[in-house]
């Protein structure tokens, strides 16, 4: 039995040191470090207590995330983190569920789950750390590997057409879709904050370089390396002529146009709408069902059922 003790003393504001756990096992220079650092920064800024979050993942380098955050966390199996997280979310409305994973975990083995978790609008935040390669298994082709990329499973260069992550996410029915880059810590923090505030299925695709197997993959968006990091300008509703040029995140067609831009594309919130989440709809079903049984004690509900089976 676990020992129980008195409740902890009044809470001190969360600091980074409260949030760090095992030292990350990633290769030095891996983009995932920055994704983690910006997550700490976001949690610190938002002052979300430990008891309100849970960090989950599938399998992959990126999916090692839970070990590196001092919070309730779970390391599940390859590709199934979304249904696992859905089970947590749908049964525990008091928690905010964060899910981390790679491009293979999300778009290949877990593709079907991503699609259904998104269309059901389950309340959680999913961060896909896209390095366009299989890192953990050491350089095989991933569903986002570009044509021509040489891997151990495509030594002469990949020729299957890659998934366009943003288009796939838009088609999935996700209700908050954003894109960021591991070289942009402030931008990532901003995206975390917006995703966290969203009710429903929020997903952030973060380009995160695998320095070991795909170095330089996303340099085209790194100003320091001569690239361009272009942010999506969201409408402000200020009626200015400039505003007409800005992006309306509830406009799916406009979002698809952004998704269709040539690499390195743009970064920010592509899409956001607010239909009810599955969490809300299930809660309504429970409320109606409880009403129908006149809020009876559980034992009496079952007794009533048995009485009808006599």
């Amino acid at each position, binding site marked *: 039995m676990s020992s129980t003790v008195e409740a902890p003393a009044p809470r001190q504001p969360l600091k980074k040191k409260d949030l760090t756990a095992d030292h990350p096992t990633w290769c030095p220079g891996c983009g995932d470090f920055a994704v983690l650092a910006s997550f700490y920064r976001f949690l610190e800024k938002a002052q979300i207590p430990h008891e309100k979050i849970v960090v989950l993942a599938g399998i992959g380098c990126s999916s090692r995330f839970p070990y590196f955050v001092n919070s309730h966390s779970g390391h599940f199996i390859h590709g199934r983190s979304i*249904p696992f997280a*859905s*089970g947590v979310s*749908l049964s*525990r409305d008091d928690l905010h569920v964060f899910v981390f994973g790679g491009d293979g975990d999300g778009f290949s083995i877990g593709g*079907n789950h991503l699609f259904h978790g998104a269309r059901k609008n389950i309340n959680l935040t999913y961060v896909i750390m896209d390095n366009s390669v299989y890192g953990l298994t050491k350089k095989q082709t991933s569903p986002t590997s570009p044509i021509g990329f040489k891997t151990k499973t495509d030594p002469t260069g990949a020729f299957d057409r890659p998934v366009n992550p943003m288009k796939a996410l838009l088609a999935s029915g996700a209700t908050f879709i954003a894109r960021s880059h591991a070289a942009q810590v402030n931008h990532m923090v901003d995206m975390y904050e917006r995703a966290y505030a969203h009710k429903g299925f929020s997903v952030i695709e973060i380009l995160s370089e695998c320095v070991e197997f795909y170095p330089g993959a996303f340099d085209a968006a790194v100003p320091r390396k001569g690239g361009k990091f272009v942010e999506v300008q969201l409408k402000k509703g200020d009626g200015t002529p400039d505003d007409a040029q800005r992006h309306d995140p509830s406009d799916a067609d406009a979002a698809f146009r952004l998704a269709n831009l040539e690499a390195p594309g743009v970064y920010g919130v592509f899409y956001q709408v607010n239909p009810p989440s599955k969490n809300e709809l299930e809660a309504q079903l429970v409320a109606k*069902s*409880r009403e129908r049984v006149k809020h009876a004690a559980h034992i009496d*509900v079952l007794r009533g059922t048995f009485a009808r*089976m006599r």
Partner: protein
Amino acid sequence: MVSPTSSTATPEGGAPSVEKLKDAVIRLAGNSQDGIQTIGGFLARLAGRSDQDVMTYMTIPSTISGGPSIFQVRMGSGEVLSAGDQADFLVAFYQHSYESHISFLREGGVLIYDTDHVKPNLDDKRFVHCGVAITGLTIEACGGAAKDKGKNMFVLGLLARLFSLKVDKLRALITERFGTKDGDVLRNAFLAFDAGYAYTVEGLLKRYYAFEDPVRPNACPQVTMDGNQAIAYGLIAAGCRYGAAYPITPWSSIMEILRTELPKYGGTFVQCEDELAAVSLALGAAYAGHLSMTGSSGPGLSLKMEALGWAVMAEMPLVVVNIQRGGPSTGLPTNVEQSDLMQAIYGSHGDAPRVVVAPQNVEDCFYLTMDACRIAKEYSVPVIILSDQALSSRIEAFDEPDLEKIMVKPVLDLSPRGEDFKPYPLDRMTRHAPPGTPMKGAYPTVTGLEHDEGGHPTGNPALHMKMTAKRRDKLRQLAATLPVPEVCGDQDGDVLLVGWGSTWGPIREAVKRGQAAGQKIAHLHLRHIHPLPNGLEPIFARYRQVFVVEVNDEGLYGFGQLATLLRARYALNKIRSITKTDGLTYRVREILEGVRRLSGEQTSTFSLYPGA
């Protein structure tokens, strides 16, 4: 069966005599769209309400649009153990029903047939023929509007008269069933029922029948349900409020019930995109601190295997229901087989010990499901419940459970944990701290990677050995607490029949019949299969032969799946197999034939089945 125990009452004033029955097997044969399941269901529930014992047997076609279908009801005033090898009464709706099922009617049995559709061989004097224009009379009664929809109600009326059934109780059941639909449905049902009841079979049959008054000690009300309902309500009684699944026959009815029922208890059941998602979602709810479940049938269980391995590694409690059907692959979706045992025990990769239990009848579907829930929580382990297609659709009546005594309240334990908390302690049982729990020390990670006591990944050989042993030893601890099953029949002797799952009734009846014929024979039924309870060796030692009766294949080496396990576990050559793969439940006769065959092989001087 009727004949040995029935007696004819004295006829009164020329009225047809009434024969008292101890029990009767009635087989209804038609097409699935005729609603014969409805007749069967009414009869079963009536028996339950009349404190009679009842068991049903149903075959359903796997095509939705219908096809030949049967429903067999065995009602009796004593203990009813099987749905019956032979029918005493056969109701044939069509020529094909007659042709396929007349061989099931015992000699002297009564054939009731629809003269509008069936031309029986009236020269066959083995049977009593009773032709009734079921179709025509139903149309007449309901004014033609109902077409042949009311035939089942007409037949129910006919049977009510024939068996002197309690009409007021039947009418109440019909009202409960159809009363919520629009008025016409209920009115037509009664029109057809009354026409059937009023029909005089006196010209055709010499007598009416009535069941003997049941002798039930301290009768408490009985509930009548099928095995799948019993599992669903067992889960609710045990405090399970969360689940997820994907539809598949014959599992689906459980998820349909839970989807409707759980919200009444504040819970949620999710229909997922596939079984991989279903088991994962259920595990998410378990990790979140709830008692949670998933379920499926054969193909779906296969898909859940990787995640079940995670549950073993992460030591996550989970209840998994598997309603076995004929396999492999899509196999025989609407037939029975007990061929998922090895997959349930060993189906995941790696050394992944988990618990497997198998309910023996409908009542046990309720209680063993509750026990599975208890075990999952106490040992922080996945528990697989192996039921099967036969149990899923079989209707039985049993004493209404005393909920006051057994109902379990769901608890979500988020009490703060101390500095010394470890998710995977080596010296005690794992008790997870669900998310939301305030922690004094580090926050825990649950994981499918091999780990140390704190949940940190490790490849350390010594730790892998220790953790593997921990996951195995907790099942040994469980085994030590399991009750040794009772042996029914001779307490020592020639043959011990060992069974598991839905074969309980037929095996028990086989033993009774064998004993009546002078055999020294007994029955041991295993409900907890992995781990096995301790203390079986001394039982096996008391018998010269141990025959394991299963509905699966004898395999490459001549042994069914449980027999293989028992031989490996006890290294006894005398353990052998009686198996079959026809997709149907065992008939008592088949078991006795198996006993005779195996005994004959082993001991030439010894006949276990005299006169067969």
